[in-house]
């Protein structure tokens, strides 16, 4: 399996994403510079976390208009799995691949800690290697992760089983303290209608090795590998 990680000025989780992909898939990982729309054929694309363009204007707004993102949109429409993590999630909403928007955290603070997520669907190329309802521990690190969408879209996401992850406590229960940013319906990750694009605020690429505190992120990359094999 060959994959690509998009690199913007200000990306800072691109190397982690590269390591996660390389470790889990064993295949080549192309580091694709944002100004270069000439991307090789790849089986999966990761839009990584960070602060692309210093979050100028709005998080992800300038990155969303970079030459490579026009190509990423085309590939996504062709069915290539695209995973947007943190700032990558923000970029994917800005380009319209995913609905909604990530607003400033409800308490206005940058939040950097481990959170628990409940796997809400295993019907996607990113989640088959989890079990339905599984509770996993993954870190978040963001200032703008407060997922907001209109009521009609929220209903659509729920009805079409497109909420991939929700913030929960360690027991898997949805409690007010479990949601780190005020996101609507405790949403931590959403899928597009074709289910080949996932955006999420937490960082699965940071938990692929026991030495870093856990391996709950590995199954996501194993899922992608299984999906494209």
């Amino acid at each position, binding site marked *: 399996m060959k994959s690509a990680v998009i690199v913007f000025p200000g990306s800072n989780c691109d190397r982690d994403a590269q390591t996660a992909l390389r470790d889990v898939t064993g295949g080549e990982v192309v580091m694709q510079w944002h100004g270069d729309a000439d991307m090789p054929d790849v089986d999966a694309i990761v839009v990584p976390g960070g602060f692309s363009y210093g979050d100028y*204007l*709005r998080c992800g*707004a*300038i990155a969303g*208009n970079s030459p490579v993102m026009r190509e990423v949109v085309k590939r996504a429409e062709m069915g290539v799995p695209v995973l947007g993590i943190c700032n990558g999630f923000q970029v994917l*909403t*800005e380009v319209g691949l995913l*609905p*909604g*928007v990530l*607003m*400033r*955290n*409800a*308490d*206005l603070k940058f939040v950097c800690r481990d959170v628990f997520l409940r796997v809400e669907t295993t019907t996607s190329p990113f989640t088959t290697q989890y079990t339905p309802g599984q509770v996993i521990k993954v870190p978040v690190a963001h200032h703008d992760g*407060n997922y*907001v*969408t*209109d009521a009609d879209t929220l209903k659509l996401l729920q009805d079409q089983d497109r909420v991939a992850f929700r913030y929960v406590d360690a027991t898997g229960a949805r409690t007010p303290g479990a949601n780190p940013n*005020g996101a609507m319906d405790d949403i931590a990750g959403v899928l597009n209608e074709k289910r080949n694009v996932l955006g999420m605020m937490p960082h699965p690429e940071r938990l692929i090795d026991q030495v870093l505190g856990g391996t709950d992120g590995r199954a996501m990359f194993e899922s992608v590998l299984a999906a494209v094999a």
Partner: protein
Amino acid sequence: MKAKIHITLKNGVLDPQGKAVQTALAGLGFTGVNDVRQGKFIELELTEADRAKAEAQVDDMCKKLLANTVIENYAIEIVEG
């Protein structure tokens, strides 16, 4: 020609920053503030000399980049000179 653009959050979209500003104002004794909404103000210097064309261009810019129309409204004012 200049364009002045006000970008504001749509009604119903929560504005935690505005709320924090309101609380800070109340802390300073300004208790008569019912609500605060925080937005952006952007000024553009344009080469276009035709007012209608300039307005159309700026409208397109707002839709494609300057505003996120999922949560934001924008108002454009074209100023001669």
